[in-house]
């Protein structure tokens, strides 16, 4: 056996666990779920081919559209808000002042907590009668809203508490800010650029690849939001205002045993993610600057 042959054999040996895992836990489930999407199926019986039935039902399913609307609503408001907040925090943390390690810990820690714990905690934080938020509002002479009980507020509540967890994104921005060469800022300052202009002309272009990365991750994550609404608002209560896409998918699969239908929903989600990713890549082509790295 030559050295190249040995290396070839070792390559396959080393990669073989992952190769098996890929086939078993990704490729097979992916193809199977594509097949089930066109079937009437629950784990209790064999799949029966029904063609496009699941998709036509989906199209006329009011709850499906509600869940899609709720999820899109969340994504549309949460993503820009999270971008602004995490970037603003990162810029504050990047300023040369004392005590940054403490501030960083405070902003970052919440994003690390188990989502179930966060959800349970915020049930109490936003409690209508005795929660801390409404208690504080009362101190200021305001009557707080029904954060958890009023369908007009519930989605906003979920967005607010999700913003509590921007720490992870914030750290990624902070790291990219620290990579921006100081000389660029000095040059801009010499040219008389104000803070706002420096942000627009130096900071944002330099970190644009990271903004794109975080946006893509944000879209993928937002479409899969599950734990917080599932724990805080069982069944999407009140009035289906918090019934999110993945929760409806889960219910179809494991509550109603409509597994073919759930797979169809899964593929619709996958396609939405692919389309949104392609669109953001296209849109970003002109605006993302890869010169820095």
């Amino acid at each position: 056996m030559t050295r190249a042959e040995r290396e070839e054999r070792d390559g396959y040996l080393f990669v073989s666990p992952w190769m098996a895992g890929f086939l078993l836990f990704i490729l097979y489930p992916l193809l199977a779920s594509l097949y089930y999407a066109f079937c009437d199926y629950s784990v209790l019986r064999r799949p029966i081919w029904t063609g496009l039935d699941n998709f036509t039902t989906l199209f006329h399913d009011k709850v499906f559209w509600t869940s899609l609307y709720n999820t899109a609503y969340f994504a549309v408001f949460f993503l820009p808000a999270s971008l602004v907040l995490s970037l603003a925090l990162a810029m504050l943390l990047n300023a040369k002042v004392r005590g940054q390690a403490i501030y960083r810990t405070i902003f970052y820690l919440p994003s690390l907590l188990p989502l179930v714990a966060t959800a349970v905690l915020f049930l109490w934080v936003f409690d209508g009668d005795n929660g801390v938020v409404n208690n504080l509002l009362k101190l200021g002479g305001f009557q707080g809203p029904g954060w958890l009980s009023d369908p007009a507020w519930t989605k906003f509540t979920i967005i607010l508490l999700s913003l509590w967890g921007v720490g992870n994104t914030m750290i990624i921005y902070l790291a990219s800010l620290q990579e921006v060469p100081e000389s660029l800022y000095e040059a801009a300052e010499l040219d008389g650029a104000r803070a706002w202009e420096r942000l627009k002309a130096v900071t944002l272009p330099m970190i644009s690849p990271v903004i794109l990365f975080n946006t893509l991750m944000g879209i993928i994550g937002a479409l899969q939001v599950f734990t917080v609404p599932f724990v805080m608002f069982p069944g999407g209560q009140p009035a289906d205002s918090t019934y999110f896409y993945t929760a409806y998918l889960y219910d179809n699969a494991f509550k109603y045993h409509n597994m073919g239908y759930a797979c169809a929903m899964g593929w619709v989600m996958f396609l939405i993610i692919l389309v949104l990713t392609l669109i953001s890549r296209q849109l970003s082509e002109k605006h993302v600057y890869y010169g820095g790295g």
Partner: protein
Amino acid sequence: MAQSHVRKRAAKVAATHLTMILLSIVFLIPLFWLVTTAIKPLPETVAQPPVWWPKHPQWDNFTKAFVYDSDRLGYIPFLYYTRNTLLLCWLNVMGTVLSNALAAYAFARLKWRGREIFFLVTLATMMVPFPVLMVPLYGIFREIGWVGTLRPLWVPAFFGSAFNIFLLRQFFRTIPFELSEAATIDGAGEWQIFASLIVPLAKPALGVVALFTFLGTWTDFLGPLIYLIQQKTFTLSLGLQFYQSQNGGSEWNLLMAATTIVVLPVVVLFFFTQRLLIQGITLTGLKG
């Protein structure tokens, strides 16, 4: 001129501090509410005007929450949740580090046919959302009788995952190839090079993967929710949700004590591994 510059700078520093202190207070309020409620006697949780700091901290709320329902069940549920979670964390960390290090080594340092294509395919799997795979995966594990056991929650870790492979491959590539060459000349095989050269040098990266895996397992909810049936097999996340759904809305002090129990280990771990963690996130974000 110089003096006004100094004054301007001082004003800017003060403004930055003020902004961050205000934001810190906002970020800390929920945690303050968590901890103070956890040590309040029940009447104080619903008192109006609100009690901001309990007059007589009830430390036994934690024990009460921990042993909740154990008389009826004949065992301490939170003890089982903790044990199951730790067991899963341990197995997942072991499996993830081992399988992904092997795969990353093959991608980073060995030449074999199909390597480039399979690496692209590997990266592409990161796009696939878990809900798409959920149903067939459940089908597989049901078929082999693993539903209701912890196995579906750790066995796949021993087969690797794209994100970790990517992370480790990036790191393995930075290790000079001359080192491998020298070892080969000394008669070392690939396994030896991997185990006694690459792995020791890659300890920081492997540490990052281990830490992410630990945290991911500790906080996972959807996985345990799908596969676990009996309360005895629950993890802490699932157990907390179960506890809340059974007893939520009444004894908030005990619920917050239970939440603190679930959160505390993560906080402690954070303080010990802060550096590594932030390095790791930086690595994923910048090189992603």
